[in-house]
């Protein structure tokens, strides 16, 4: 399974992967590029990854969710330059009922944010560029 893609995300395609006659509850989450970050206007974002580990970590997160709940999970994260309003991450979870679908969907997106090595560089409307989540020390000292 490939979890990283440079192509636009397509919720319908992910939905088709998990859809099934016995799955009555389907939950989805779409993370979309926002036009501002901590009060600064954002023009676009560039996502990059440690691709081998990001794939491995996504596979572990999906396997954990599918073991913990009776669900099937589809997950994709986009890399490259994204404009405002474009989807960066998509999770679709199908189960027999809504409880497990919502719980597993929440788990997958929270664990992705906590564990998957992906970074984003923001290009601001005021001309600045910065890595999201950068700790101060030594950052952008050129």
């Amino acid at each position: 399974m490939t979890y990283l893609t440079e192509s636009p995300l397509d919720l319908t395609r992910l939905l088709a992967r998990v859809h099934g006659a016995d799955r009555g509850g389907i939950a989805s989450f779409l993370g979309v590029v926002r036009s501002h970050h901590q009060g600064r206007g954002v023009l676009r974002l560039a996502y990059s990854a440690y691709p081998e580990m990001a794939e491995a970590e996504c596979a572990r997160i999906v396997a954990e969710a599918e073991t913990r709940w009776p669900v099937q999970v589809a997950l994709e994260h986009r890399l490259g330059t994204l404009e405002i309003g474009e989807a960066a991450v998509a999770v679709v979870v199908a189960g027999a009922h809504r409880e497990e679908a919502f719980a597993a969907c929440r788990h997958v997106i929270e664990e992705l944010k906590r564990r998957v090595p992906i970074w984003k560089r923001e290009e601001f409307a005021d001309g600045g560029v910065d890595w999201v989540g950068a700790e101060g020390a030594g950052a952008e000292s050129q």
Partner: protein
Amino acid sequence: MTSSTAPAPLTVSVRLFARYAEVVGEDCVQVALPGGATVADLLAALRLQVPRFAVLPARPLCAVNLAHVLPSHALRDGDEVAVLPPLAGG
């Protein structure tokens, strides 16, 4: 195979990403370490051997062979170690 008294020295490759690669000006370096070295030992060696590595945080997130590890993780010859800036996926 006979076991020796002192563990053999080891070499690991260290990969840097995103802001850390920019700050250090490298995205991959090879480091030789004494046998039994841990991730914390590797970080100490990097601060001495790699210009500008010392400006990175003292306890960055690290991974070995594609999985997150603690600083106490013991390294083996040929390991791929990644030093990861704060994650920002999603």
